[in-house]
């Protein structure tokens, strides 16, 4: 299999104004194959954007390098950049220009000219469904339309490789659906390679051929979804919602010691989180072989401890479970 992206020891250390250092990305080694959708899955602050920024030549790596189609992004930046289309996490468009002018301007930045340019602009406009609104200024667009144009600009020059950094953040379900379909279309119909970052397990699960799980700047697992889930084994994940009741570590210890099949317990307090997980309630997360069988025993223990269980969910092994297994935390934080 041919590789489109190879990173070696990719590292970024930021220096804060107060002099302290943040190691945002630590020695990332990745290989992305031609024609695949590769997801980089990790919570906020894991280092996804920083990684993409280094691969696209926006940030200079503190250490290491990335090869894009064989070209070093630090030594042959122009050749490497020609292969890449970038869809940034935050919308990056000229608000005072209309949709068409935005596309044309950035098209020219990728050396598209004349008929070639206008032809591509038409194609992209219809692809993102903005042909009717092409003459309207971007600042009159809805969030979803801006997102679509933001994606469109990154696809204009038919890049072999597309970097999409959380392209669905903060949009309505329809626009999100549309973008997810677009990503699959790019791979299936145009043979593009896509590096897709997200903190949403479902998106990674739906899209990816292969997944890299990133946490605290390190890729902690990498492979097909099947590979990764196999690492967790046959274990189910039990999720107990407990609202804002306090859960002490003694209770978790008790469950681990007394219930057969339980391999791991953790408590995830209520707090801000992503869109897929309820974040209004504290969660007790338990991994157990044959989870359904362990359920009555667990409920008995919590009952005795006076913790009222509001809902129970039994999850078959998935990427969330992989993350939990590797980090002891739910993906949402």
């Amino acid at each position, binding site marked *: 299999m041919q590789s489109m992206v190879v990173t070696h020891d990719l590292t970024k250390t930021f220096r804060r104004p107060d002099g302290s250092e943040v190691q945002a990305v630590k020695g990332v080694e990745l290989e992305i194959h031609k024609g695949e959708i590769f997801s980089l899955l990790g919570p906020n602050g894991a280092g996804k954007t920083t990684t993409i*920024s280094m691969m*696209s*030549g*926006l*940030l200079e790596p503190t250490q290491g390098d990335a090869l894009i189609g064989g070209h070093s992004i630090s030594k042959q*930046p*122009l*050749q490497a*950049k*020609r292969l*890449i289309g*970038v869809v*940034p996490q*935050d*919308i*990056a*468009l*000229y*608000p*005072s*220009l209309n949709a068409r002018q935005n596309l044309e*301007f*950035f098209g*020219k*930045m*990728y*050396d598209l000219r004349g008929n070639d340019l206008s032809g591509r602009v038409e194609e992209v406009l219809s692809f993102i469904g903005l042909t009717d609104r092409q003459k309207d200024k971007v600042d009159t667009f809805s969030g979803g339309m801006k997102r679509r144009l933001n994606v469109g*600009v990154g696809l204009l020059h038919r890049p072999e490789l597309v970097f999409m950094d959380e392209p669905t953040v903060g949009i309505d379900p329809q626009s999100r659906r549309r973008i997810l379909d677009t990503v699959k279309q790019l791979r299936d119909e145009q043979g593009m390679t896509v590096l897709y970052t997200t903190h949403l397990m479902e998106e990674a699960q739906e899209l990816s051929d292969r997944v890299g799980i990133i946490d605290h700047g390190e890729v902690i697992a990498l492979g097909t979804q099947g590979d990764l889930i196999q690492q967790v084994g046959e274990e189910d994940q039990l999720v107990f919602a407990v609202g804002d009741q306090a859960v002490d570590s003694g209770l978790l210890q008790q469950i681990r010691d007394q219930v057969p099949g339980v391999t791991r317990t953790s408590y995830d307090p209520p707090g801000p989180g992503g869109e897929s997980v309820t974040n209004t309630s504290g969660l007790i997360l338990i991994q157990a072989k044959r989870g359904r069988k362990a359920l009555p025993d667990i409920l008995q223990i919590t009952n005795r401890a006076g913790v009222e269980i509001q809902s129970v969910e039994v999850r078959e092994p998935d990427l969330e479970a992989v993350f939990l297994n590797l980090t002891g935390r739910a993906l949402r934080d």
Partner: protein
Amino acid sequence: MRKILTIAWKEIYTTFTDRNLVLIMVASPLVLSTIVALAFGGLGSGDVPIADIPIAVVNHDQPGQLGFSYGSIYTSLLVPGDQGSTIELPACQLFEQAQSGPPSVTLFGFTEAVEFDEALANSLVASGELEFQQLAPSSQAFVDGAARAAVEQGIYTAALIIPEDFTQRISYLPMIHPRLEQTGISVYANSGSPISSQVVRSIAEGITNQIAAGNIAMASSFEELQASYGPATLGQVDFESAFSCAFSRAGNTVGLDPQTIEGSSDGGATRGILVFVGSAQAMFFALFTAQFGVLGLHNERRQGTLQRMVVSPTPRSAILAGNLGGVFLTVLFQLLVLILALTLVGSLLQGKFDFIWGDNLPLLAGLLLSVALAVSGFGILLAAIVRSPEQGNILAPITNMAMGVLGGAFGFTLPKIAGVFSLVYWGREAFEKLAGGDSDIGLNLLVLVVQGGLMYLLGVWLFNRRFEVA
């Protein structure tokens, strides 16, 4: 190269399609300089820049009983002697204890006032400069008539005539002259230059009022003295000191007697003021254009479009060059539009077409290029120094105001020693010279280009060092 042009064009396009920006760039300076021209030049008036209004001061005043003449003091205030037109007065200690420092009256700018006496009148007539005939020379009427004729013929903008009994009438002398009387200084002004004569009149009025007020103060104080100590003490009063107090009070008893003589007009004033204020205003506002243009890079970083350019196969140097090129061209275009628009305003005001910037077009083009370079260089430097657009928005008006004030963008000039620090000064002076048919602007161009070039280099260097894209 193509991409540099694409980026520059985008810069220009976004600037000129922003209605607010265009308003600031073109409309504001145009409106401001038109207002100034209307206010100071008047419609179709004949005039010269305010700073050097030539005035003839005719002093007939005779010293009063106390041996001094207010008229002479008045004249010495207006007519520059060896010390310039400044007299310093002894401290006013007589009636006001809390005076800090000696009061002084300083009149800057009236360097063109002369004392117009019989000798000067005769020499002007003799040299043929002044056409004036009078049957009975060597009389007051002869001197007054000659002064008026000189105003009519444009030698002076105004003539001030101080009457013979000026001191007499406004002096307070217990017993002899216990009551102040109405008196008048005549101001003869050329009606073709209303603003200049207005300036002369208000200055003359100001001085007269000071004297009169002082005398009223003296009068009332003398009356108090008299009441307390009786007439005997009067001999001990220090009159020099008393006089200085005349300048420390305000009041209004002596009126002016303005008489206007019809004069010819040639539109010189409107033109002069439009060139003066207009060019300085154009540069003042161009400074903002340049700064906001370069600060645009900060905005582009914030809105992510700069990052998009950086991840495209476009070298960073091309991005910066495109932005700076766009700013330079925008400024150049703005200056050009203003030059043409001010020409239009000047022509409308005068009722005939008048290209107010002189006829040396190649030099004018060179000057515009140099000014655009200097102005945008300053913009780059400022944008490179600040950390954020917000900082820029605070700093820019301060620096530009300073540049504008020093350079004369608000209708008045500061001494040259201050002006030389402002690129607006150098540009404005060159525009004025060209408009006046003087093509000796080599030094101005050199200063602008060198200043601009250095600021460009320093600005770009700082920018590369300090500006982080991501």
